[in-house]
């Protein structure tokens, strides 16, 4: 444990050190050092801009991710269980997953305006397909012996879905959620860069337009840190919910 922590620290020192050095050379006018960026981050945190910005950014993100998660898992379940639904809907999600939706953003603006709706929509479109497809795949691949076992002990359909299919599919559903949430973050930032600059996207574009690069990098750093934090929470949730599914390394 301490060894892995030490290695984590070491790799962090290497990466941030490289950043600091690159900033000092400097590789470009527009590339600040690590410490400058952290100072800007601290400044933004203490004067409250950062919190206000995240208030804006998190709104579409949280709403969009929540909708995608609930709807995505439900749809995935349905697609996995019904061959008719599978036939009808899975191509749509395959297309959606493959589609470069960044290009669709201008259309969304035209259709849904510049408000929250568009941004939530962007987040959903980015996050949903992978959640749906992963869930459907996992549900389809539930070992038939477990389902048979459930039936032989008199489980009804709801029992089978809730107590066997979902827990069994949970690792893959969670990895779908993980990719989905990360895509949702991409969507949220993309919508703030391409639809209307608000929140963190606004800090990025505005600092760039006034050539305040440390602030720009601080904002980028903070959103990445937030995404990583969010995903770690998701992982904790998975561990708590389905403890027995985590089986450790084969090599250990």
């Amino acid at each position: 444990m301490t060894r892995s922590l030490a290695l984590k620290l070491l790799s962090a020192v290497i990466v941030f050190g490289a950043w600091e050095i690159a900033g000092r050379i400097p590789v470009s006018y527009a590339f600040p050092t690590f410490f400058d960026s952290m100072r800007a981050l601290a400044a933004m945190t203490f004067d409250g801009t950062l919190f206000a910005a995240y208030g804006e950014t998190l709104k579409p993100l949280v709403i969009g991710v929540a909708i995608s998660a609930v709807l995505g898992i439900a749809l995935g379940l349905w697609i996995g269980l019904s061959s008719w639904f599978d036939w009808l809907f899975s191509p749509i999600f395959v297309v959606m997953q493959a589609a470069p939706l960044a290009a669709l953003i201008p259309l969304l603006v035209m259709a849904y305006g510049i408000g929250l709706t568009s941004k939530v929509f962007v987040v959903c479109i980015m996050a949903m397909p992978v959640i749906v497809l992963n869930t459907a795949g996992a549900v389809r691949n539930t070992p038939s012996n477990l389902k048979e076992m459930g039936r032989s002990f008199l489980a009804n359909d709801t029992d089978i879905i809730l107590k066997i299919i979902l827990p069994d599919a949970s690792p893959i559903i969670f990895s779908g959620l993980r990719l989905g949430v990360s895509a949702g973050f991409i969507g949220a930032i993309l919508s703030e860069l391409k639809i209307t600059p608000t929140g963190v996207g606004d800090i990025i574009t505005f600092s760039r337009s006034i050539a305040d690069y440390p602030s720009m990098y601080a904002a980028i750093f903070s959103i990445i840190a937030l995404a990583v934090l969010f995903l770690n929470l998701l992982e904790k949730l998975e561990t708590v919910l389905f403890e027995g599914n985590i089986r450790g390394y084969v090599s250990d």
Partner: protein
Amino acid sequence: MATSPIKGNVVHPAKFNAENAVSARRISKNYGAVEALKNLSLDFPKGQLTSLLGPSGCGKTTLLKIIAGLLDPTSGEVEVNGRAVTGPGPDRAFVFQDFALLPWANVIRNVAFGLELRGVAQSEREDIAARYIRQVGLAGFEKSYPHELSGGMRQRVGLARALSVDAQVLLMDEPFSAVDEQTRRKFQEDLLGLVANENKTFIFVTHSIEEAVYVSDQIALLLPRPSRVHEIIRPSGFRDKGVDNIRRDPEYLDIVDRIWASLRSYVE
């Protein structure tokens, strides 16, 4: 070839005349083009242990699943206690060849899972489960997860789960396949204890002739696919002689040899 029951050593007349807990009547089962079972009929007397012996892939698991109501036969029907089987029921419990444990649930939840599905309250079902866990010798492992157990221990969890729902008929698909010889012998003793003390009906699949002869009231030899019953043998009485002596018993050896002679033709 025909379904002519050749009797072995008849010892417990009471048991032999017992009514049937399960009857399979002219069962056929096709998987697509594969004929697994063809016109198979077989009775399972109440309170007795019936073994199914036959080459790999002959349809033993298929038959068990049809009795359990997990598979529909292509034709024919199964009666349990006089009523036709249309699906799984509380009167039957299954021990699966591949254990079928929930990997995300710990031992006690796995053992209690059958009761959970029947709506038994948590504290009550955990009490019952704990009792059966002790009975199969897993006390102390209640909070372990399946991947932390050895194969034999996992198999015992599946056994405890089937026992805990207190069904009349126990369908056991190679329940001792994953354990070493030493542990297996202990299980056989345990199983005989269950047959003697509880008035339950056991249907038992095994690949070991010796095991079948030792634990069974009745052995059904199955033909290779498409499977029918080739012969029924009733090797009763050895279990009273104790495990240490039975291996030298000439009657025991005769029956093992006869079954072996019957089966070896498929191998060659």
